[in-house]
């Protein structure tokens, strides 16, 4: 840094040892593993050109796949938002036999490989599976339809909201709830007007994480989806199909489109989060 006036040095002097080593390892590894590969994708996109990307994406099959992926991811994340908040509440506030088991089970979708989840859900919800047969009785097809994709996306996103909301529920001061009651509010009113607004920022963070996970999910979905073009074909699968045909340009175009849409969505959600956090006053 050959600047004559430096307001802040790039790296402050410190008595701590290991600056060179830790910085070297960090920057080298992040470059090789994350930055260079992502750079390669962006470079590919740049060489392909905006027009090329648009031409690839602007086909019915791609639009349908992108729309399906984002729509079902949004719905699944919404389901997880509601169920996750309920689960966090139940796990923190109530004492009942099996609570610890339930608490541990919430993390299973993090630990279980997605391919395993995929074939297990398919085995359950296929027309000859335990739940699938029941659903068939009432004419409801779950596996090999959009319901199946929704289910798989709910599964992979399940822990996020619960795990972000749980610590916040633990921190709610009992006096705040009591204050609401002494002011004449019914329990339901207290929950709607006092408790849920307090949980909202954390719940939104969990929602965003769940959404991001669902949009990119591949392993658990492809088994249960049926993968019929235009109907149950998700965007990540389309990338894999292009790659299997060695169409790198097309695959990159769809990949870049996915990245752009998810970053835009996450940006919006984060802005909502920042706004609501600021209102509550702990940034």
């Amino acid at each position, binding site marked *: 840094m050959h600047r004559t006036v430096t307001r802040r040095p790039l790296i402050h002097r410190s008595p701590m040892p290991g600056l060179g080593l830790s910085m070297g390892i960090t920057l080298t590894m992040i470059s090789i593993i994350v930055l260079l590969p992502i750079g390669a994708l962006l470079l590919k996109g740049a060489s392909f050109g905006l027009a090329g990307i648009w031409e690839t994406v602007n086909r019915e099959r791609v639009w349908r796949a992108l729309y399906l992926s984002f729509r079902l991811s949004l719905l699944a994340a919404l389901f997880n938002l509601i169920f996750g908040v309920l689960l966090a509440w139940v796990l923190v506030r109530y004492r009942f036999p099996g609570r610890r088991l339930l608490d541990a089970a919430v993390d299973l979708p993090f630990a279980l490989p997605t391919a395993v989840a995929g074939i297990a859900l398919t085995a359950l919800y296929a027309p000859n599976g335990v739940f699938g047969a029941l659903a068939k009785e009432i004419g409801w097809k779950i596996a090999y339809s959009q319901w199946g994709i929704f289910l798989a996306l709910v599964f992979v996103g399940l822990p996020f909201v619960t795990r972000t909301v749980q610590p916040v529920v633990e921190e709610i001061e009992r006096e705040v709830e009591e204050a609401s009651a002494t002011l004449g509010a019914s329990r339901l009113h207290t929950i709607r007007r006092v408790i849920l607004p307090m949980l909202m920022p954390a719940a939104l963070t969990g929602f965003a994480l769940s959404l991001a996970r669902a949009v*990119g999910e591949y392993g658990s979905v492809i088994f249960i989806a049926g993968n019929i073009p235009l109907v149950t074909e998700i965007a990540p699968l389309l990338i894999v199909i292009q790659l299997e045909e060695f169409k790198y340009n097309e695959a990159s175009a769809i990949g870049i489109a996915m990245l752009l849409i998810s970053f835009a969505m996450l940006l919006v959600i984060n802005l909502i989060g920042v706004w609501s956090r600021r209102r509550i006053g702990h940034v």
Partner: protein
Amino acid sequence: MSDITPYEGRFRSATEESPAARWTMIGVAVIGLGILVFAPLLVVFAEALSKGWWAAIKSLGNRDALAAIKLTLMIAAISVPLNAAFGIAAAWFITKFDFRGKAFLITLIDLPFSVSPVVAGLCIVLMFGANSWAGGWLVANGYPIVFALPGIALATMFVTFPFVARELIPVMVEQGRAEEEAALTLGASGWRTFWTVTLPNIRWALLYGVLLCNARAMGEFGAVAVVSGKIRGQTATMPITIEMSYNEYLSVAAFSMAAVLTLLALVTLLLKTALEIRHADQLASARRH
């Protein structure tokens, strides 16, 4: 004391829901998790053992299955220690020094969590594939990356990249620098300070991060599917083998392999829960994954 009115039993406290509401919510939670989590767990084992123990064990004993297990173990053995080393280095760099762009660096470390595994695989293919500049040179010199072990390891490292660092950074921020500074003033060398002061303080958090990293590394599917080429007995990991068996209607083989990975997941959860109960104070972000 003769006039005892049992009001406590009859009236609920101001901060509780009615028993009906409470049990309804518990019921919804139990049924929801039952359908979504416990049922899939059970069906894996039920399907694996549907033709008996012998069929399940035999399917795991064939050459390709054993090769897949070996490959998955090797991938984990490569990627987990490397990511752990990265996590420690990054956490040290970020928490022991002050520099510009720290928040940006943390965002970069988290980036792989918001990239689809399939896109991650795609990135690796574009960077190191035979048609790329770097990949072409490596292939010409006899070091293929994509459709070979290094590519699978790279893809795995990409998707598991943030786990250890994310666990360590908050813990080390909380612990501050005072203990290391004390050790240095007492004349300890940098390495000695790290081994005798820092590492003992972060060991449980490190173990926690490594556990999660390992579970994801052994189970990764999307990113690996893109870079592996799926050559039976050579580049097919356990999850890839599950897919291949399943698509060939070899249900017992697919679910037996799945059962092995499920057991691994259960052991991971068990250890993770044990860590959370016993060392909660040393796991800053234990609840935030």
